[in-house]
């Protein structure tokens, strides 16, 4: 049975069992350790996963000068869309007050969070004074900064840097495997969390989680149609309908696998054959994007951070929000496109502003549901940038792009 199906079944079973226990007067909290154990396993992955995949990602950019105008333009597009997605997530969560009133008990826990005092403090605290200490404390920003420097230094060392590079590469592969092993336990974890929520908190909490997912879908659709299609229309000057048509099979694959890496080959094919983007451009932009550009994930992180803060009744000030934006942007860069990476990275974003890690619990239960649309946005984001850059660089075959559009052809004649 496919993993996503297992997870959906586990969700339903969890709700049923939890509701049953509630009715019969059992304490559903006994099932929570199943969820906690799963989340601890996830946590085990974070540090090494970021370290290895980030370093590897940087070594992939061989020579910053060779990267050139095209590369810088691509990175700039990725950066802007990522920041916009986080902002959209934060805005939606704030506007809809997704987490307010979730749990009296949690809101009254009166947690104090460590707030950075100033922008310069945020930047100083991003730099590790000892890489091992950063790894031990799990300080993701510091690990990312170290990995960036390490990656550049490995490239600079040439042949002599190879053994380290090989080791990092191997570590990254092993961590991806480890992630998929851990994800096999996801149904058990989701079952435990769902039973706990249904059993101790009741139906209205489930509805509130469902509302989170619905608002997320809404935000994603709005983001994709306004920002992405707007980019196609206004910046690239192309027909957005044709873009969606051409990318359709990649969108379907992304929705069902929840993995932007798994959708990469399909979207590569779509963008080259249906949309007429040259192989030069797509071969460079899409693989880069599938590792460093995650719009759907970024949107989720902004939304989830606000959700957790609201659940715990914590007010986030401007600096904390800025820290969330920086961390979410960088941690989106530091993850491979594997299923589940969204909420693996969420733990990083939460801890960066001192929000309780436990806030993940509720969201972990529904993560699979929301990851489906999230991956679609991730994949579309890469493709949009590829088409836009290709158009601007004159590497887009417009005949090919427009071929599926009879009405346009008709108007040309």
């Amino acid at each position: 049975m496919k993993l996503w199906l297992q997870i959906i079944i586990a969700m339903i079973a969890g709700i049923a069992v939890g509701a049953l226990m509630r009715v019969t007067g059992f304490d559903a909290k006994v099932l929570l350790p199943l969820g906690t154990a799963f989340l601890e396993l996830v946590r085990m992955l974070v540090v090494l996963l970021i370290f290895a995949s980030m370093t590897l990602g940087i070594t992939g950019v061989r020579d910053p000068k060779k990267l050139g105008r095209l590369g810088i333009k691509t990175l700039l597009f990725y950066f802007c869309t990522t920041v916009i997605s986080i902002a959209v997530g934060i805005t939606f969560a704030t506007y809809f007050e997704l987490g307010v009133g979730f749990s009296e008990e949690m809101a009254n826990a009166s947690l104090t969070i460590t707030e950075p005092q100033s922008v310069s403090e945020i930047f100083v605290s991003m730099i590790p004074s000892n890489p091992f200490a950063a790894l031990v404390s799990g300080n993701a920003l510091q690990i990312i900064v170290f990995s960036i420097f390490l990656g550049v230094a490995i490239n600079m060392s040439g042949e002599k840097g190879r053994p380290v590079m090989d080791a990092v590469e191997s570590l990254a592969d092993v961590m991806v495997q480890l992630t998929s092993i851990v994800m096999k336990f996801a149904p058990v974890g989701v079952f435990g969390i769902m039973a706990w929520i249904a059993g101790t908190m009741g139906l209205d909490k489930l509805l509130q989680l469902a509302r989170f997912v619905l608002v997320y879908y809404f935000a994603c659709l709005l983001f994709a149609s306004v920002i992405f299609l707007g980019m196609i229309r206004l910046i690239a000057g192309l027909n957005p309908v044709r873009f969606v048509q051409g990318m359709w099979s990649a969108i379907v694959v992304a929705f069902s696998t929840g993995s932007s890496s798994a959708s990469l080959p399909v979207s590569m094919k779509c963008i080259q054959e249906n949309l007429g983007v040259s192989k030069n451009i797509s071969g460079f932009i899409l693989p880069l994007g599938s590792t460093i550009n995650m719009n759907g994930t970024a949107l989720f992180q902004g939304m989830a951070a606000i959700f957790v803060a609201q659940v715990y009744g914590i007010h986030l000030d401007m600096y904390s929000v800025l820290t969330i934006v920086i961390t979410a942007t960088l941690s989106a860069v530091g993850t491979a496109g594997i299923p589940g990476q969204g909420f693996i990275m969420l733990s990083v974003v939460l801890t960066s502003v001192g929000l309780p890690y436990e806030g993940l619990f509720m969201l972990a239960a529904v993560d699979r549901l929301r990851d489906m649309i999230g991956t679609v946005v991730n994949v579309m984001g890469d493709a949009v940038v590829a088409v836009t850059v290709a158009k601007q660089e004159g590497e887009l075959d417009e005949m090919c792009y427009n071929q599926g559009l009879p009405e346009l052809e008709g108007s040309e004649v």
Partner: protein
Amino acid sequence: MKLWVKIIIAMFLGLVSGWVIGPKAEMLYPVGEVFLKLIGMIIVPLVLASMTVGITSIHDPKKLGRVGLKTLGLYFVTTVISIILGLTFAFIFSVGYGIDITPGQPLAEVEPMTLAQIFSNLIPINPFASLTTNANILQVIVFALFLGVAINFSGERGRPLLEIMESVSEVMYSLTSIVMEFSPIGVFAIMAWVAGRFEMSVLLSLAKFLSIYYVACLIQLFVVFGGLLVFIARLSPGPFFKGMWEAMTVAFGTCSSSATLPVSMQCVQENLGVSKNISSFVLPLGSTINMAGAAIFQGMAAIFISNAYGIHLDFLSIITVVITAVLSAVGAAGIPGSGILMLSAVLASAGLPIEGIGLLLGIDRIREMISAVVNSMGDAVVAVTIAKQEGELDELQYYDVQVAELEESEA
């Protein structure tokens, strides 16, 4: 433009702008802090990897022991000379008389560590725990030593690990070069901060102490270290100072000898032709246990405070000062700002009031600038001397520095 030229320009600009901006220059400090943290990030992996590799390339255990003993011996001798130099200068120029004693904030006394404590602190209980703090560099050194020997014993099967270590040390050298590109910015910020928070009145009242300290440090640098090169290593001192110039400017501009370690390792290997196995062993060890500049300060400060308080020091207490200063230099290994911290141990041992340190706190940063230079040059001089004696010095490379410089100035 060469890097050291940029650093010197940055230093100058920093001092001027700090002086103009005044105390508000404090807001530039985070920039300097970022730079110091970036260098700090390199130190532990660099020491671990390069030292392990260095040890594996010394196949003869006897040689390992000989080099180790010689290093410790030379460090001991130079430290004692530095303390005596400090004492003597302070006596001759009778520093400290007529100073207005206004007690500063009370300071906690630091107990000097006993030899037993020092030794038990050397051994890492958990190598990963030792790697997580820059203060535990001595434990990292000890671990690297054992690891290197164990890799050699493992023969062929140890090779993959050795290759990774070799590669890590190379990568860390590249990383040093990358971070050093930022050094002018960092030095600018640090110098502006130093100059900005400085009160002229404090400087004037301690001008005599400070200038005598600088003179003593220069004598240590050129007479003692230069003499060591001429008479013991039998090398011309000129190329040494030219080759180390970059490290010297970095030390002066950052006030930190440990921040200078990655740079001086590069200078010693690439400009002076010291083999990697000697330099990767001698320099990290020296950066923690050999602080010639700090030792001069401790001797000088002891006399300064005894004069200021009108306490007469007899011969025995002077001997005590020397012994405590040597021990505390070892025990202070890796404690940041240890110069001033360990001074309290030295003062206490001679029965001098610890509050006296407050008199000298105001000039600590300016003192540390030259102090860091002497500290790091003290390590480099020992590395060159031992390399020469062990036949691990590429003399062609050592003198090439001069040739290259001459060619350039002729052109």
